[in-house]
């Protein structure tokens, strides 16, 4: 096909490595190969690079460098934060507050803790996909040790009231509930909206590098000074005893470079993706009927659009789009390999049909207006064609042949 093009609208799944990030990391894969824990010159060169990167990642979220723990990614950050905190705080209580729209890693950790006798309160997110601060307050008990609510959701992009929750946690501590901590998964939010751990008032915050134009396999956990965690990786002194294992120097350098770019270019990129996303949604509204937009339109990340297309199944639409070069993701169960459609869309109170027909379009800094035009062309036809074939649709063709 001569006019075949590819448009990547799945930046919430992962982003391409920025060429500047690649350039920064390459020497650390070749001539600068030292182990950052070695005492000799090669090691010290690597140590200095890791420290520089740590300062950049800290600067992205308004933290101090020594509050950053490098690890393998968002899932490990969530594991260290929640398991590590809960194991350290067990003697003060065994109750966690979380929400209905957390990433599967946080859901999975909370389920595992529940099996070990922890009580877990899951807060509702209503039809707009947002936790209510008053629900958080009502759920706090004397034995609550951790509140873990994501900063912004990965499927619908809704931004949660973490700053209000952080203020509430401080108030609680002021009233004598000293053993209460706040964790937030900021994997989707980082690089898309400004983050400041002081404003948020969180004690733990998870980050992943591959969502901010750095490679996969590297992430970080912000651990506020004074917060105790039980390390989940033992057997080495790295990362101030919090995460044993040789530092992945090239990946850490890449994360540092990406964090610097994200911080310096955040407002420009956010505005760019917001314009593309808003234009895309306007055109979808004009061209396609029987759709439902998922998530509060005013309180969400600038790059995500999540739409349920009635009468069609998300994976059927996803593969149709993929065959025409457009990459998106879906809440359909078929696609995720599970039997249940997206728990996030279901948590909004949507029925199975809407959950199964949900598609996430997530824009990135390299997308263009021409991409939106192409996607609209492909999407409009694909939806029309699939609805023609759907037994749920009124548009099915009835014919005599």
């Amino acid at each position, binding site marked *: 096909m001569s006019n075949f093009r590819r448009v990547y609208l799945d930046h919430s799944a992962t982003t391409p490595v920025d060429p500047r990030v690649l350039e920064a990391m390459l020497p650390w894969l070749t001539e600068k190969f030292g182990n950052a824990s070695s005492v000799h010159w090669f090691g010290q060169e690597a140590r200095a690079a890791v420290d520089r990167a740590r300062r950049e990642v800290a600067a992205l979220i308004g933290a101090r460098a020594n509050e950053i723990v490098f690890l393998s990614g968002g899932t490990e950050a969530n594991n260290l934060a929640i398991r590590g905190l809960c194991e350290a705080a067990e003697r003060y209580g065994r109750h966690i507050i979380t929400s209905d729209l957390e990433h599967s890693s946080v859901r999975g950790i909370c389920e595992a803790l529940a099996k070990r006798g922890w009580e877990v309160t899951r807060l509702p997110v209503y039809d707009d996909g947002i936790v209510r601060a008053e629900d958080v307050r009502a759920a706090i008990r004397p034995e609550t040790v951790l509140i873990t609510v994501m900063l912004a959701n990965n499927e619908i992009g809704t931004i949660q009231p973490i700053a209000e929750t952080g203020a509430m946690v401080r108030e609680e501590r002021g009233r004598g509930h000293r053993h209460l901590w706040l964790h937030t998964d900021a994997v989707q939010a980082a690089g898309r909206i400004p983050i400041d751990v002081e404003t948020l008032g969180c004690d733990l915050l998870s980050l992943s590098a591959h969502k901010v134009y750095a490679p996969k396999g590297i992430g970080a956990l912000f651990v506020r000074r004074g917060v105790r965690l039980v390390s989940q990786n033992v057997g080495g002194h790295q990362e101030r005893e919090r995460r044993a294992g040789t530092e992945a120097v090239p990946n850490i350098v890449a994360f540092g470079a990406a964090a610097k770019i994200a911080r310096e270019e955040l407002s420009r990129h956010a505005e760019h993706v917001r314009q593309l996303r808003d234009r895309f949604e306007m055109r979808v509204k004009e061209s396609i009927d029987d759709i439902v937009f998922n998530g509060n339109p005013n309180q969400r990340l600038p790059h995500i659009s999540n739409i349920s297309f009635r*009468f069609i199944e998300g994976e059927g639409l996803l593969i149709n789009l993929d065959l025409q070069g457009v990459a998106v993701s879906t809440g359909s169960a*078929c696609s995720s390999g599970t039997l249940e459609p997206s728990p996030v869309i279901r948590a909004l109170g949507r029925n199975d049909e809407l959950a199964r027909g949900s598609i996430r379009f997530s824009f990135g800094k390299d997308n263009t207006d021409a991409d939106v035009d192409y996607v609209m062309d492909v999407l409009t036809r694909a939806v029309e064609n699939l609805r023609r074939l759907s*037994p749920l649709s009124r548009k099915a*063709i009835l014919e005599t042949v």
Partner: protein
Amino acid sequence: MPYSNTFKDHLAHPRNGGELADANAVAEETNPVCGDRLRLSLRVRDGRIEAVRFLAYGCAPTLVCGSVLTEQLEGKTVAEAMGLTRKDLLDAIGGLPSRKQHAAALAIETLRVALEAGCSELLNNK
């Protein structure tokens, strides 16, 4: 496994989509596990399938199985159609990943229900 060219072709250009107004064998079956749905309408005359249309709601393999099945059915006798197996359909598609093979099972099941409902006399006299 990657999807075959036949798969891609049928997904991009489904054959025989729709519903026959004068069908005399119709069935709509749902996969109880994943909710995928397939509707077949067939016009059978003198023991032979004259025309067939499908509607499908589900993942891409379900849509493709519906489309490929309709091509396989045209001109077949009812007895020949009843003899079609899941494997015949999978072979015609060029295979499906194992976790997607339920789509072929749904298509064959829907076909059998339609023929049993619409052509019971023919099948009983066979």
